[in-house]
């Protein structure tokens, strides 16, 4: 009970603070919009190449953009926590009896709400470019995006709690996020990749996330990647949330 109530309180507070100063939310959606506008048109001609998965160019491209937005949106949330730590807010709350899980979960759920809002904007903007809306698939895909947020944002928070400063955090987050992104087939499908690259991608959870979301966007509801992607993300999210809650309860310095 306490955990649910505290999670709500922290979620509510964090969301309001984010909305009061939405620069980062807007920045976070500007970059993927640029990809849609300036990179998307190139795909029209590639889509007919051999190896390119079936489905309209944008039904293949937009899922990648959404995963990228979810990844970067949640990988950098630790910066906000560094700011709160510097202002002594985290320490102050650690002296209250509030649930330590809630300290993490309240923030991570805020991150999920933000990235879902960004995803809605991106999907709506993609329709004029030729994205075909498969509603059931998109709804489930949004659930997977939430799982990406729940998996990645605790990682960012743990790193922030350990490293304590934005300067130390930035290179580490980049070192984690960039390979995950490049090896996920976000920009171009991994089916175009040579064998060895494909093998590496296989152990990347985001690769399965992209594959699952692509299947959903193309209404291939029988694709096993949907189950694989969901299971991988769900298991990892449970693990990272558990780690994150532990990090909040012991953060000492």
């Amino acid at each position: 009970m306490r955990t649910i109530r505290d999670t709500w309180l922290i979620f509510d507070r964090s969301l309001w603070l984010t909305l009061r100063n939405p620069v980062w939310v807007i920045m976070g959606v500007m970059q993927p919009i640029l990809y849609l506008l300036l990179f998307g048109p190139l795909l029209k001609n590639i889509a007919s190449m051999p190896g390119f998965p079936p489905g309209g160019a944008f039904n293949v491209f937009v899922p990648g953009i959404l995963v990228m937005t979810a990844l970067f949106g949640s990988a950098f949330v630790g910066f906000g926590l560094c700011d709160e730590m510097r202002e002594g807010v985290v320490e102050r709350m650690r002296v209250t009896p509030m649930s330590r899980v809630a300290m993490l979960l309240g923030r991570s759920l805020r991150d999920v709400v933000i990235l879902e809002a960004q995803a809605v904007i991106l999907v709506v903007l993609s329709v004029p470019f030729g994205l075909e809306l498969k509603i059931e698939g998109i709804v489930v895909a949004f659930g997977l995006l939430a799982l990406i947020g729940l998996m990645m944002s605790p990682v960012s928070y743990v790193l922030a709690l350990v490293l304590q400063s934005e300067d130390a955090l930035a290179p580490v987050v980049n070192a984690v996020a960039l390979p995950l992104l490049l090896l996920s087939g976000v920009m171009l499908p991994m089916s175009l990749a040579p064998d060895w690259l494909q093998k590496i991608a296989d152990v990347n959870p985001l690769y399965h996330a992209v594959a699952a979301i692509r299947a959903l966007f193309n209404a291939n509801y029988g694709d096993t990647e949907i189950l694989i992607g969901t299971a991988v993300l769900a298991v990892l999210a449970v693990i990272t949330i558990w780690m994150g809650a532990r990090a909040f309860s012991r953060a000492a310095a």
Partner: protein
Amino acid sequence: MNGQPIIETVGLRRTFKGRGKAGEVEAVAGVDLQVQAGRIFGFLGPNGAGKTTTLRILATLLPPTAGTARVVGFDVAKNPDRVRERIGYVAQSGGSYRSSTGRDELIIQGRLFGMSKAVAAVRAQEILEALDLAEAGDRTCGTYSGGMRRRLNIGIGMVHRPALLFLDEPTTGLDPQARARMWEEIRRLRETGTTVFLTTHYLEEADALCDDLAIIDHGRIVAEGSPDELKREIAGDIVTIGANGHSDKIVELMRAQSFVREASMEDGLVRLYVDRGEEAVPQVLRLLDGSGLAPSTMNLHRPSLDDVFLKKTGRSLRESAA
């Protein structure tokens, strides 16, 4: 709780690992403390003495390397949540978020302690008024002056009416007027039965505000008692002589006098501990004149807490705190 200490520590220690092989810092080096409920307890010491580290241990933020601490009846290591329910803690700096309003910070704090929205809102208003922040309550904290922000942070620590409130240097950075109001507020807390444990390196504050004191230096308690008891340890008066470069000779000369209980020197000043200052001064003058050791200044005063600190540590708190 009456009669039983609200804080009790035994052999409390905390070491920090140094950078590389630079060795360890023993920030708290075996502290035994007893704080009685309902008192204002002052923790006095120079920079780096270990005040904040001790406070953080008592407030469940930092596990001790050794020793035990019982706070509001519970062991901080074994039952941190029970402790947290009944204490408030205001850090030396920080506590409120600059993009949040003062009122919102107070309300969320109350709610984290289980208050309903309505109760928390009423309490927030009460605190804003008590700390002279009513006008600024709906502005973001980032727009507050340093003193306003400090008062808000202290207010946040009081929202849930804790039985025991830790304040780390509550008046540092406040102007004299705001400091006086803060003292009043702290005394009012005592009247309502709250125990206040505060750190300070202001001697005047320790003297005027605190019922009990512990003086800490290099992680160790060097003296304990009420301000009066501590000052009484240094019986009599103190004569300070500007030695004009003759410190050694003057100390030697004075130590030979029967009316001088003790003589010491630091930074070109000779300090004499005497029983009756008014009588000692003319005698001292006569002796110095007779030996051709003309002093540049001479000063007679009653013992202050600084003298206590000086006597216990060989250093002046005024200088080490500067």
